[in-house]
């Protein structure tokens, strides 16, 4: 029995196993080992967990992998009779599947980390303050949402680059920075920084996950609008 077109696109993308299955895990492992070495070299305080930040490598790798998924694989897929819509849905399904797996690894890692006293050296590799808080399933959901977000954001950048080249991509990045600057100006003008600081201080992991999910929806809409008129 032949698989559905979306599953076929996922299988097509997974032919490049190194990019999608090896690279994120390899970077996570490399970050973990590096953090262990760094903590061994730096004298720590007593009792406090030491947050190391090596896990940040994984979302960054997902950003790059997302861009890669549309850089060279997309034109060949279109040659082989895949529509843009099906390709986009297939790549998004792959992002979701990868993020479910990595998110679960993060949630399990967090449990093990807590049970072993931070791997015996007080290291907080999987426990990210404010973000990966609460029960295991919430950590899973949050990690998954962050990873999907980064993949889809990378994919949108890759699509903009394919359509408009370097000038368009630069303008795309500049427009986002401009929007942030404008928002900061508006916040200053409206004396809103106190409220923003209050919100960030009180927001829960659940609330933050909801906000990130909304951003994913916006990125997906933008990415789909970009791929719709793509020519190769």
């Amino acid at each position, binding site marked *: 029995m*032949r698989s559905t077109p979306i599953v076929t696109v996922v299988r097509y993308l997974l*032919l490049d196993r190194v990019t999608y299955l090896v690279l994120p895990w390899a970077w996570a492992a490399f970050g973990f080992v590096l953090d262990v070495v760094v903590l061994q070299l730096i004298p720590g305080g007593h009792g406090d967990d030491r947050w190391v930040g090596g896990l940040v490598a994984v979302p960054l790798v997902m950003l790059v992998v997302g861009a890669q998924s549309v850089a060279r694989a997309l034109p*060949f897929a*279109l040659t082989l*009779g*895949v529509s843009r*819509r099906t390709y986009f849905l297939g790549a998004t399904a792959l992002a979701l599947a990868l993020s479910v797996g990595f998110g679960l690894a993060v949630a399990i890692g967090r449990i093990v980390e807590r049970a072993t006293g931070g791997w015996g050296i007080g290291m907080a590799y999987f426990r990210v303050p404010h973000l990966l808080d609460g029960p295991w399933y919430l950590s899973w959901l949050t990690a998954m949402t962050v990873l999907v977000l980064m993949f889809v954001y990378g994919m949108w950048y890759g699509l903009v680059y394919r359509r408009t080249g370097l000038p368009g991509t630069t303008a795309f990045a500049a427009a986002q920075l401009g929007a942030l600057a404008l928002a900061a100006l508006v916040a200053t003008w409206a004396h809103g920084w106190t409220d923003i600081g209050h919100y960030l201080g009180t927001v829960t992991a659940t609330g933050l996950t909801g906000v990130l999910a909304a951003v994913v929806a916006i990125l997906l809409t933008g990415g789909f609008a970009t791929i719709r008129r793509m*020519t190769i």
Partner: protein
Amino acid sequence: MTPAISAAGLERRYRDHRALADVTFEVGTPCITGLLGRNGAGKSTLLRILAGQEFATAGRVRVFGAEPLENDTVLRRMILVRDNQTYPDLRVRHAVAAASLLYPNWDADLAGTLLDAYELPPARPIKKLSRGMRTALGLTIGLAARAELTLFDEPCAGLDGVARALFYDQLLADYAAHPRCIVLSTHLIDEAAELLDRVLVLDRGRLVLDAPADDLRGTMTSVTGQAGSVERLIAGRTTLNRCTLGTQTTAVMVGRLDDRDRELADHLRLRLERVTLQQLAGYAAEYHDRTVLTAVRTP
């Protein structure tokens, strides 16, 4: 019966450049069609629109009776192999595996045979292949996919003579065993001429000739000899591209020759040469706006 390809009033504009203008034709199946024309004539643009990879500015295109753009049902029945194909960072065997996932009629044995014939190492990264080997990989995928509509855009670019001959032989053998609609866009017209059932000639975005290949063969003849003798043979006939060098004149005559014409040419010691399809495509592009091509079918 629904034609494999149907285009009506097709137009593609890029700002101040018109790549295609009012292109109208139909191609049935099974058939091998040659899409001919000079660089920039609009061949690749037309093929990309047919494959849903490019957008028409105006007009209508149908493949197997339906709009191909973003239509998975139609797209999975066709393949467009381009000379400058972009491949992912994969190995040869991965590219072949990708195509096998997407085409229900994929012939793994044929793919293996062609990989061997073109000496393509399955484990080699595609980015390490030479230009000719990349072209050969595209041909392997294009033939083994057995898509009902197979579009080849400059399929022999970068291939040596042996590899080109191999491709033409394989194409013909596979077409005979599995008849389907194949469109070849090529500069190497005479090499592919014997394969073609149908000829479409594009010139500066316009379709200037659309005719069965058999109808075109022998419709133009080049006559060379003494000026007076040439004038006697071509009297009352449509001629193109007449030139004189010293006492010798060469004229291209439109229309088929009968036995009496040949006897007369022999008597006048004239040399007759059949105009090749390549030359004919050139004349079609050059003279399409005149009424001289009465012997060939124009759109």
